[in-house]
């Protein structure tokens, strides 16, 4: 009797498993991305895509402070999602992502020729396009400020570090936290350093090239040291408030809208994003100026942003390609620009931009442009999160600016040696 019962149970189990396998007839593609990289508009488009093709998209959103390590672990273990998001960059997609091995060549896709040439060059290797830009890369990370606070305190846009400190002091004296900074996410606070590569380049021309040729190290740069010291000074003087270590960037709009803070480092989608969440706060009330550390007045451009890649080991490559083709359709690109407050455009030739006069005026105010170091210097972006930790260690007084720069150099050398970069070997 027992044997018959056991046999019957085993049969039921087998049938259940078979039924489950059989029930899942539709194709589902998985898409792994960092927090904030997949917008609501994309999820809505994914639903339309499912209606149109029957292919479901399963989004796997990972907290930003854990994403890079998790993605690299998955890629290195050979078991990634069908689609994965990653920052692009002509150096990093080779040395870090190894897209020639891990991603699918998308050059043959109909939409490939519509990708903005500058953005395409940052997602291509040997002339082959491997990624599809997912966000607006025209925007720059700059200091977003509440114009009303500046008017009330009779402050003007600072053009150097001393003026910036004076602005912060005035805001602090008025009882507000001058700058909303979010360290807990792990990716935001190092913008003050990496984006200001343009200031290093301006102060010491040719540094990026020398760093790439390994004829100079970060530790040799007086401007880089000054940058770090000024970042620490901002925190020490209380310009970031008391809670910057636990703050999350998702709360930046709230902090500005509720008058808790007067400034934050954001891109040009921030005003509309703020207005969408807090309609009483007009988008025009947010102005921008470049981060004035090291007296910087150069606009920090970065043609690179979160990008979608198809994992080469996926068994649903065709379905994933269909999804990317769907997202790149002109009406869907326009849908994202209209629906995502922080997008003013997308890097496709078919996109129509939605810059406000204020944003256009901000770009026009800084005629000098430079490329940020995480894009134009090798082996910087792969250690983005590490640089964040190094910077925190400096701010907390656990190490000096020199130590931080030496550690960045050491990590770059380790990666270069492992990659058998001729400049290091």
């Amino acid at each position, binding site marked *: 009797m027992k044997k018959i019962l056991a046999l019957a149970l085993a049969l039921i189990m087998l049938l259940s498993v078979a039924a489950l396998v059989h029930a899942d007839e539709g194709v589902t593609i998985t898409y792994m991305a960092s927090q904030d990289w997949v917008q609501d508009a994309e999820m809505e488009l994914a639903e339309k895509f499912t209606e149109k093709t029957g292919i479901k998209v399963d989004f796997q959103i990972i907290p930003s402070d854990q994403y890079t*390590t998790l993605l*690299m672990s998955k890629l290195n273990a050979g078991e990634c999602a069908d689609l994965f998001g990653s920052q692009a960059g002509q150096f990093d997609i080779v040395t870090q992502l190894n897209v020639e091995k891990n991603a699918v060549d998308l050059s043959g896709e109909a939409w490939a020729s519509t990708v903005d040439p500058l953005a395409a060059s940052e997602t291509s290797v040997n002339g082959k396009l491997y990624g599809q830009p997912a966000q607006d890369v025209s925007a720059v990370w700059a200091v977003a400020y509440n114009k009303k606070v500046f008017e009330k305190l009779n402050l003007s846009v600072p053009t150097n570090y001393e003026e910036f400190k004076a602005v912060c002091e005035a805001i602090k004296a008025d009882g507000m936290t001058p700058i909303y900074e979010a360290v807990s996410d*792990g990716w935001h606070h190092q913008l003050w350093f990496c984006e200001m590569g343009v200031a290093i380049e301006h102060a010491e021309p040719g540094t990026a090239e020398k760093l790439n040729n390994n004829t100079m190290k970060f530790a040799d740069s007086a401007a880089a040291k000054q940058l770090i010291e000024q970042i620490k000074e901002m925190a020490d003087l209380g310009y970031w408030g008391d809670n910057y270590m636990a703050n999350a960037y998702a709360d930046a709009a709230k902090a500005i809208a509720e008058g808790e803070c007067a400034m934050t480092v954001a891109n040009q989608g921030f005003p509309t994003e703020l207005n969408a969440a807090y309609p009483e706060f007009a988008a025009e009330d947010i102005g921008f100026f470049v981060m004035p550390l090291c007296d910087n007045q150069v606009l920090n451009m970065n043609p690179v942003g979160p990008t979608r890649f198809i994992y080469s080991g996926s068994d649903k490559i065709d379905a994933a390609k269909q999804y990317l083709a769907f997202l790149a359709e002109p009406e869907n690109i326009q849908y994202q620009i209209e629906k995502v407050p922080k997008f003013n455009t997308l890097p496709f030739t078919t996109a129509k931009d939605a810059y406000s006069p204020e944003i256009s005026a901000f770009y026009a105010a800084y005629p000098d442009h430079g490329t940020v170091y995480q894009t134009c210097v090798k082996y910087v972006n792969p250690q983005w999160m590490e640089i964040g*930790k190094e910077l*925190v260690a400096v701010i*907390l007084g656990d190490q000096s600016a020199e130590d931080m720069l030496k550690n960045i150099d050491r990590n770059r050398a380790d*990666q270069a040696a492992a*990659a058998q970069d001729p400049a290091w070997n």
Partner: protein
Amino acid sequence: MNKNRIYPTYFVFGALLLYVVLFVLPSVVGLGYSFTDWSVYSQEIHFIGLKNFATVFSADYNYLRMLENTFVFTLVTTLAKNVIGLALAVLLTRKVKLLNFHRAVMYLPCVLSALIVGMIFKSVLNPKIGMLNTFLRGVGLDFLASNWLTDSKIAFRSVMAVDIWKGMGYIMTILIAGIMSIPQTYYEAASIDGGNTWQCFRHITLPLLAPTLTVTTVLNVIYGLKVFDTVYSLTNGGPGFATEVLYTGVYKEFGLGRYAVGTTLSTIMTLVMLIVGYFMIKHMVKGDGQEI
């Protein structure tokens, strides 16, 4: 059961094969890879001798701090879980109202996933809006409100405290079982002889509970040496590098594609666990009157 029955030797082969393939072989292969430059950046693997070990033990890197943190974590959490777990076990083997309810409440945290506990405590310990600081400020203890997870001087203590909170109920349960197996007659005899509560605990409970305490110590030490999830979810090794432990380091190295360094760290930890495990098991078996 017939204790004298001798089973054929080949009965052990299946288990031995699984153990060798799943545990011994990966450890040996890992040991081999720790002498190479295996990484994601290159298809070729070269023998580089002890270079990775030199890197791990070099003052230029942060690995020694990770090792130190791992040992401190193991020592502190093992001691605290055993002491608090024992105190709770003694309390909850007495005649207390709602005894099983109290036991369940103390045991519940260890049922939760470490990641969930981490996420909850990340919120509870938020310096501005967290429940703990809000409570402290509410009762006028503002001076005690701290940056629990974001001050490098106290973050590691906070992580250990959360882990102790989560793990002490489990240890308590094991110790309760140990205490309940002690015959009541010993306590009755002691009370006739005029022994007080402390004397009963010191001379009856503690000695007879020693084998159970050895088991809980072994469990805690092994758990402490391989801790990852609690640290990862609470601080991810931060602020800065203040709470990095060995396995967050291994995870990071694999994430960065530096497989050989990650494997070297794992190998070092395997060796430490082997040595610690050997002496602990030897001690345990000695207590049973057998030889190892």
